[in-house]
């Protein structure tokens, strides 16, 4: 076992992990953060997407020891100041969620996009989530939500147009 320190959703954490343990397992099993989902463990589905130092990663492919000293953001840390993140609001409002198993990963991929590109085009949105599989939905409602969330900040509204 190795002890590592990292920040998860803004809080400093210290965890003992096996050297071969993934960040995904540490989040889910050791820290009880089950919002990050496990769909394939091979890097193929994106359900396990979290932000590591602001960048989206498949947490099933990241060894926990490699995330040491990193800053991790999971879906549980998205809501800010007691309110939902605009992306979460928009996901609910625009019907981006069906079974919802892909949603945490989608949300984090899109958060990374909006952080670097506050007004993304449709193509940029679709490409940002191209590593996140959704088997229930048609991706368009997710893109609608992302675009609504991107404009929500500026106009204080959530008009889709």
């Amino acid at each position, binding site marked *: 076992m190795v002890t590592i320190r990292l920040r998860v959703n803004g809080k400093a954490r210290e965890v003992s992990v096996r050297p071969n343990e993934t960040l995904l397992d540490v989040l889910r099993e050791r820290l009880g953060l089950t919002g990050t989902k496990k769909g394939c463990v091979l890097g193929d*589905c994106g359900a396990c997407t979290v932000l590591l130092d602001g960048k989206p990663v498949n947490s099933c492919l990241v060894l926990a020891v490699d995330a040491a000293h990193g800053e991790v953001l999971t879906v549980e840390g998205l809501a800010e100041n007691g309110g939902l993140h605009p992306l979460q609001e928009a996901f609910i409002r625009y*019907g981006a969620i069906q079974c919802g198993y892909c949603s945490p990963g989608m949300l984090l991929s899109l958060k990374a996009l909006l952080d670097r590109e506050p007004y993304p085009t449709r193509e940029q949105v679709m490409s940002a989530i191209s590593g996140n599989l959704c088997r229930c939905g048609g991706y368009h409602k997710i893109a609608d939500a992302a675009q609504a969330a991107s404009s929500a900040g500026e106009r204080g509204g959530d008009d889709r147009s």
Partner: protein
Amino acid sequence: MSNTSVVGTSVPRIDSAGKATGETKYVTDISVPGMVHGKVFRSTEAHARIVRLDVSDAERLPGVVAVVTGADAPYSYGRMVEDEPFLAREVVRYIGEPVAAVAAVDEETAEAALDHIYVEYEPLPAVFDVEEALSPTAPLVHPQLESYRKGPIPTPVPGTNMCSSFRIRKGDVDAGFARSDFVFEHRFATPPIQHCYIEPCCAIAEYDCTGALTVWSGTQGAHLLQQLLSASLGIPLYKVRVIQPPYGGGFGGKVPMHVEPVAVALALKCRRPVRVVLNREEEFAASTTRHASVVTIKSGVNRDGRIIARKVDAVLDTGAYARIGPLVLRNGSIAASGPYDIPNVWIDGACVYTNKVPAGALRGFGTPQMTWAYESHTDMICRELGLDPVEFRLKNVLRDGGENANGEKVRHVAVDRCIEAAAKGIGWGEPKVTTSPGKARGRGIAATVKACAGPAESLVVLRFNRNGRVRALVSASEMGQGLHTVVAQIVAEELGIHVDDVRVTQPDTDFTPFDELTTASKATFHTGNATRAAARDLRHQIASIVAERLGVPQETLRFEGGRVIAEGLGESVAITDVLGKGKHRATNELVGRGMFASDYVIPLDRETGQSEAPVAFWMYAAQSAEVEVDLETGDVRVLRVVAAHDVGQAISRLGCEQQIQGGVVFALGQSLWEQTIVREGRVVNPTLLDYKVFTSADTPEIVPVIVEDAPHSLGPYGAKGLGEIVTTPTAAAVANAVFDATGVRITDLPLTPEKVRAALKAAGTKTTL
């Protein structure tokens, strides 16, 4: 459209907040105190006798709690045919079949222990091809077929690999062909495919000291699972409790059962809760596929463009065990002649055992395979005769009062309107946009019909509390399709309250009332009706309290905006003030009960498949597609899909759009590249990367058209179902568009670039000759 205020609108889904925040605990997020982890040791042989099985080394490993084999759990299961052992006994019948299982303190230890199990097989001749399996000399997958318990639907033939058959005989098909001006015959095929729900199958099983069993499972049928476990284990129903937490998609793949038996066998042995989660490779190689199909279809058509006779011969590959195959066969074959009014119909369906991964329900219950065949065939007829595919369909399509293949006079049909909307939406008949050299564009259309077979029964209980809020106890399964929101909308509609004032409980057979399983797009219709009945029961009870309080007749009360209003009197009572006051009445809670059974279904005649009321209800749709084909590479790009669906009445407009867009994307993957490749019984592409489902980058524009012209007289507010039929016409619409663009016809799915390129080459060669 019905006169409603909540039903028919778009409301945010009531289950989305928990899913957006990560709070919702899915089945794979659950852990039970004392829980250990199970892993499965699977067969590497397609058909073999187990000569020696030694688990003693594995048992001795530190951290291993129990190892089970078929000898420890000598039970079998199967809703149709009880042909499947919990763990293989004596014989294995497919690569991936559970042979033994390990429970250990963690998954890693369990996984490692699998390497310490030793098995010796004596190979038996195996059969992988359905047509071969039907030959008299084929090796038998189940020589003991006769001895199995079976339900009323399957018709297995002992001494063969025939698991079940189905037939329709209407009119005189041979005379019809003889009278026809033209006769066409074509053959189509589809490969096995995977559900690819993003959350894998998971079950946790736990026994208590009285021998009562609790199972947590992401199952589409909590009550069915309870029944099956009770029957298999020989313990009474009340000693089996199934709890169904939220789960990440089902699409038919989580219809009971295949992961639960291993968890139960382990729990029985180690007397601790055991969790089994499949990994992605197991999902591909050892869970359930969609039936591969071979469909031959022959039609007699007259010069005036009327179909006079149609004969369909459909063979489905059900793999090593029946699972729900006989039902898939029946529900798919029942409409295998399409949404057309044809006087002479002959349908023969067969569901055949082979030594492959078992097949089961997959979003469409056999209908996607049949629609692929008859809508490609229909297009081929039109192209040969130079008829317009839209006009030809409109000429033959079923309309109110028409007669389907079962001899039923159909009602509430708007498939003609769907065809018109799909054609208009895609710009049918308009000149095609010219594209870059080396590419060609085309448009295609396909229509479809799907049964919700029934009879089925749904019960709903509503608890109305003193705050005027409602808790709905429902056992139909929310798997992402939006059922819970539909339930909340119906309750809100009937009681004049807000959707947010309704909560829906996850299924738990100890508490939520009977609803066997959620498949075949039946829940909005059945559970929706039961919900409406329960809400009306509640409304009646509330009204009687308010009527007494205000001294007015019950009938004069209106439920609106959270109040019970006495018309004319100018008085009203807030719904939140109904309880908590009276002396002789309930003051804390009212319980509303509702039931709906599609018991008007008249079983089909076994010989002819005829019935005046063959199914609970029918669904209809048409989709059109525009594609661009790269003439060099054979790559097909879908540019646009218009999907027109006859839903009767939308309950949630947003929900319908979700289902339509999601279903089309689901089906586009199956049209263009999805296939489980099986070689000598072994799945060779068992990862999402190799299998490849549609991503956002592949997704075209999808235009949903919700057709509400033909409300169903028995559906809640006129609603029918939607979830499955969305996936059934897409592949044919795309293939027909590819033909329109290039003149090449692919008859076996998927439309891979290799196949299209080869066909283009072949066609090119022909023209230059």
